[in-house]
């Protein structure tokens, strides 16, 4: 028994993380999938010698675990850099006083709409909200031109949508709220509900329902579709509303944490993440992120941002409308 106790305590001491005292390090919390973020962060570590300690989020927490952790740690921050896979919650963190401004020289050529005016956050490598469809169940000619058509009787019970309360789906609803106005958005959401839209647990689940043929069409993100396309599943995506309001693009955002323990290292990492090299790398990865600036190398299946009709948005406005939109969706869909 004594030996067992000794083994347990020695193991624990080893595990408790006796790091080399003089090594420079940076702590990053990221909600971008580990599959895509880990290689980028490892490259940074190899190039700079700065050790990167990462905490990843998961879809099960609706990528809200780290957001809530950052809020809870506000009084004594442990994290240096927050790399968020979307923009809305980053703006909320700014408003809650969790972030500190840093204008990176790498962000000079990033269009202004993807940057905070005060430098609290910077956007890069965007995903778009798209429609995924099963090629065995739908012809291209049958596809809707606008997401607004999905409230029509022909699509009754044939469309899946992730909870419009979390993640990019919540951002999408808040964007509609901003673009169409509350009245039209509410009316549209009520019509979707009346049209028996199937609400599922996350964008990946919505995509899987289409992959398995349980519904012919669903709302999801470009990265979710691309992973399925790359693995040979019978699905394709369509950027909706190319003749109308356009598709919503949601950039990754990076921000420095106020009073973070490793400020210099954090700036190095932010500079690296906002480089053209990283945008290109994310475009070539399975997540197929769309670079927000022109002239970044991309594979053939990733369009340039300027070639797609994008919804013109002020992300601060979207963040402002998020709570109201979420409350409405909660009342409508959670029953």
């Amino acid at each position, binding site marked *: 028994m004594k030996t067992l106790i000794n083994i347990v305590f020695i193991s624990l001491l080893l595990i408790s993380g006796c790091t080399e005292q003089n090594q420079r390090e940076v702590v990053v919390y990221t909600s971008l999938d580990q599959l895509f973020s880990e290689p980028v962060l490892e490259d940074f570590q190899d190039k700079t010698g700065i050790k990167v300690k990462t905490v990843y989020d998961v879809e099960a927490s609706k990528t*809200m675990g780290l957001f*809530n*952790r950052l809020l*809870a740690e506000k009084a004594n921050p442990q994290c240096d850099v927050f790399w968020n896979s979307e923009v809305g919650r980053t703006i909320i963190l700014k408003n809650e006083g969790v972030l500190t401004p840093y204008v990176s020289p790498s962000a000079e050529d990033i269009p202004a709409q993807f940057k905070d005016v005060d430098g609290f956050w910077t956007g890069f490598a965007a995903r778009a909200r798209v429609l995924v469809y099963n090629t065995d169940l739908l012809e291209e000619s049958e596809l809707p031109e606008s997401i607004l058509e999905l409230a029509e009787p022909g699509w009754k019970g044939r469309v899946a949508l992730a909870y419009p309360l979390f993640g990019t789906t919540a951002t999408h609803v808040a964007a509609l709220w901003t673009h169409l106005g509350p009245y039209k958005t509410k009316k549209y959401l009520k019509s979707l509900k009346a049209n028996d839209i199937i609400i599922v647990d996350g964008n990946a689940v919505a995509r*899987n329902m289409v992959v398995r043929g349980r519904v012919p069409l669903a709302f999801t993100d470009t990265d979710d579709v691309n992973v399925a396309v790359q693995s040979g599943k019978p699905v394709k995506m369509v950027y909706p509303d190319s003749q109308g309001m356009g598709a919503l693009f949601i950039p990754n955002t990076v921000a420095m944490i106020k009073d973070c323990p490793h400020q210099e290292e954090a700036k190095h990492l932010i500079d690296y993440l906002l480089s053209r090299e990283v945008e290109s790398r994310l475009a070539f990865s399975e997540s197929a992120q769309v670079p927000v600036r022109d002239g970044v190398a991309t594979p053939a299946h990733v369009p340039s941002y300027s070639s797609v009709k994008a919804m013109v948005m002020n992300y601060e406005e979207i963040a402002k409308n998020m709570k109201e939109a979420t409350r409405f969706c909660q009342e409508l869909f959670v*029953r």
Partner: protein
Amino acid sequence: MLQCPRWLSYPVLTAFSLIVIAPILFLVLSPFWHEGHISGLYLQELILSTRQLGLLKTSMLLAGTATSLALVLGLPYALLVERTDLPGRSLFGLAYIIPLLIPPYMQAIVWDSLLAKGGWIAELLPFLIGGPFEVSPFWAAALSLSLAYYPFVTLLTISGLRGIDRSYEDAGILHRSPWSSLSRITVPLAAPHIISGALFVFIFSIIDFGVPDIFRLRVYPLEIFIQFSGLYDEKAAVALAFPLLLLMAGLVLIQVRCMKGRSYVGFGNGQRKNRRFSLGRAKFPALAFSVFVLCLSVFIPVLFLIRTTGTWAIFMDVLVSSWPEIVYSFAMAFAAALIMTVFAFFIAYIMERSPSKYRGVLEYMTQLPFAIPAILLGVALIKLWNHPVTAWLYGSSFMIIIGYVAHFAPFSIRVVLSSLKQINPHLEEIGHLAGHNWLRTAGRILVPLTRTGLLTAFFIGFILSLGDLGISLLIIPPGIQTIPIKIYNFMHYGAEAKVAALSLALLGMQLILVTGLLTLYHKTTPSYERP
């Protein structure tokens, strides 16, 4: 009646209060503190809307149905394995553990695939019944939850049956048939364990929204999660958890009332082999029932996982690439389970042997934490432990162990408490009269007599810690991952084969651990005691 000496009970109670009770109290009181003042602002959250009441009703019905189904499956199974001459009982006695080692969401995914339109069972049922048949989301979720959690009932019932004094059953059988003795004497004597098992199933079923969500069934905990994650209002989320706390308080009250004035004490604890009844003609129906339970809860999910994994190469690839996370998760779960079991032993003893007025308070203090969702507890742990003074602890893996102990120690306490209820206090007094101090009496008498309960508590603490996601996600030190976090990451980008392979690898390793524990149990049990 002997009591734990103060020099030991005070430090144990202080440590328990600091690790388990403090975060809960912090959470429960937080809605009443707003912008530096006492406030009733969040009390308005307690006025539930019709929609929220509907969700609460669904949750209670779902948890009640899942618990009833788990009792229907788990109780007879335990009796057959432990008290009859069922053929192959040693194999059945091990195999029922497997569902506990498969994450419940994996089981739900399996049953969703089988019961959904085009699924194997959905196609077969109308053919068997001779008409259209569709399993509703409610029943699919209840079935899935009961199949995932019935082993708690079986495990604890078996633990209880092993502590029963055989002379009671011997006396009963002189006047009544074996079946009457089983139902009127054996089962009531194992009641504390059976109730604890049922309570565990109820708790896990009512607190979880992941499994009902897979079947697109909306339940009350989703409201708490939306408030926390969708509207980032942690205090309102805690206020919304109050109805669950009240429900838990009601359950504790019912439990205490049901067990009041009854004795479960045995006079010859574990001295003789337990009685096994002959099944006679019932052997084949009993065998068919046991095989049916295992088919639903073990064979179907495991076959599904093997089929999804695909090739051996995928399995090995995932195993090798996830090895650091597997070792880390096992080490953390092992350390946490060990600490929880030691805690559970002392706290349960203090509860059982303390005057009834204190016992009541302790009953509530150790059971109310059940109603707190993991993610809220994670936030409380951050706020309590993330300070410059405790930075050395917060940034290390010790924080993960503290988190697991804070969340799961109440479960271990219930298990050990059930076992202690079967121990005759006079045995300790005899030890004391023989000149032993309390520690020696506990080590020589109590620990050996409760070893089945202690091993069960360790096992439950271990598997719950190993499968945790909510706490780990919020307090994991940077640069480290646990297996559930990795599995969920795989799940997101549709790597179903990797998810299945990792689940199978975990299942295999946990089975090795269970076999090791059973071997330890048999080695530490003299042969004349072994059932």
